[in-house]
């Protein structure tokens, strides 16, 4: 699973200054991953997206980031210049966002945009790049790549748009893909089909994947390990297979409050939040430190 270390984030802290007092969006976030699928799960505002963005230095300039290290393939990304980061982005680490409509240029065909994502990092002929693009469209299970190549973003469905985004992000063959709620806007069957594409690519290419999601059950069934966040802190990092045996009260609370097809119609247990969850020592104590921290 994670034989070779790809990324290590140590003590990431993100603060947004605000007139009403600073907002701590991430606090003491540390994790590492290899060539595996890791999920970051939590409710809205828990700090999932900022964590993903901080890795690629994609936060707005007013965000205050304090971090010990973000080590990627042995190199500390924090020490790189902006120019060097551009080499990392896309080529080494790609990011897929929730809504493809905002990430694609509306006035250019999807084929052009995917091709550009390839040629920007590589010196290849036009013909070779186009072939590679069609290949990539086929790899994300688009049945008629030649037709889709010439479509504009508004002409494709949500599911296809997300496949196109994934094609665009994967064509430079990054070693790590950060996918921020890549399927949350899609119907459940399409969502699973898109995840299957990612899954297969992770396996065949030996890529690492960080899947950001609010859907705990989905992530647990898809990923190897799960990071559970609350209030900008990591509550626990747990092997997906062990999730349902978690003893962390927040994880348990999240699992219990889900309505279940098998369940009765009795009242759902509601989550009782506890201020001590935000205490670093509390979570170390509960999860016994570094259980599944890779």
């Amino acid at each position, binding site marked *: 699973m994670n034989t070779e270390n790809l990324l290590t984030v140590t003590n990431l802290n993100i603060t947004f200054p605000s007139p009403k007092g600073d907002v701590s969006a991430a606090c003491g976030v540390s994790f590492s991953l290899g060539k595996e699928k890791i999920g970051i799960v939590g409710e*809205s505002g828990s700090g999932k997206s900022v964590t993903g963005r901080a890795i690629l230095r994609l936060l707005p300039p007013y965000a205050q980031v304090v971090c010990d290290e973000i080590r990627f393939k042995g190199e500390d990304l924090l020490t790189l210049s902006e120019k060097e980061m551009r080499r990392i982005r896309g080529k080494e680490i790609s990011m897929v966002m929730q809504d493809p409509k905002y990430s694609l240029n509306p006035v250019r065909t999807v084929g052009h945009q995917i091709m550009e994502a390839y040629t920007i990092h590589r010196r290849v002929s036009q013909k070779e790049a186009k072939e590679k693009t069609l290949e990539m469209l086929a790899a994300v299970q688009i049945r008629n790549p030649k037709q889709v190549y010439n479509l504009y973003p508004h002409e494709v469905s949500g599911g296809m748009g997300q496949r196109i985004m994934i094609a665009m992000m994967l064509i430079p063959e990054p070693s790590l893909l950060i996918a921020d709620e890549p399927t949350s806007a899609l119907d459940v069957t399409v969502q699973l089909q898109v995840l*299957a594409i990612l899954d297969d690519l992770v396996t065949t290419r030996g890529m690492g994947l960080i899947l950001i999601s609010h859907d705990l059950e989905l992530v647990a*069934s898809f990923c190897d390990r799960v990071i559970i966040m609350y209030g900008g802190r990591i509550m626990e990092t747990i092997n997906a297979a062990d999730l349902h045996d978690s003893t962390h009260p927040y994880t348990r609370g999240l699992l219990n409050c889900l*309505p279940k*097809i098998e369940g009765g*119609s009795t*009242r*759902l247990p509601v989550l009782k939040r506890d201020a001590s969850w935000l205490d670093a020592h509390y979570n170390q104590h509960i999860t016994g430190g570094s259980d599944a921290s890779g």
Partner: protein
Amino acid sequence: MLLVDKLNIIFGHGKAKNHALKDVSFSVKKGESFGLVGESGSGKSTVLNCIAGLLQNWTGLIEVDGKTVHRRKRPIEFYRRVQMVFQDPYGSLHPRHTIDKTLKEPVAIHRLGNGNDRVAQVLKEVGLDPKFRFRFPHQLSGGQRQRVAIARALILEPEVLLLDEPTSALDVSIQAEVLNLLQDIREQRNLTYILVSHNLAVVSHMCENVTVMNRGQIVEKITKQQLQQDTPQNQYTRQLLLASRGYDRQAIDQFKEY
């Protein structure tokens, strides 16, 4: 309580013609919680919009309490008895009206009187602290806004609530609170619900009877029990059920388009 028979609606003309509801028929007993589930675009919201009178160019029959509901002309009493709650509580609340004003408006329209008492009472019923009464929607969390939307529906003492994805925009912990609230209110007020959701678990939790829609048609009507015992007859329902169970690489290869 509610009967829908051969409901049809067509949007657009010519090439853009979209037969969005095809012979949709179902009935809901008084006090029942009726679930409508399906993927996006299947026509769930359109069904509710026809019942609520937000869409008028439908054909077929809609009856409430044995009385035919006219497509356009409906007595004001209808708009009191049948209330709708939408998915996005932010979009459905006026951004520059306080909660107090939002809640008093329908009371005034329907001349029910006693506005102040009604607002205080309904806020209590939906579990909102009185301190929220003079705040604006943007000062509330998503869950609190959805409670306001429910309060706005309840303040008119309706008999039927049409709930369109009422918890789909909420975090799961907040969803649990809102679903509990909806169950409590239904019991206390003996309300009839039509609950629309793309989430099979939400519908099966809330409803005894589940109707599955796909591409404007009802594909299957099943009971909660059947759903739980994993015996839906219809292939599409089976696939939806399988997909709701999480990620299973092998199962996905068997998915078909219906």
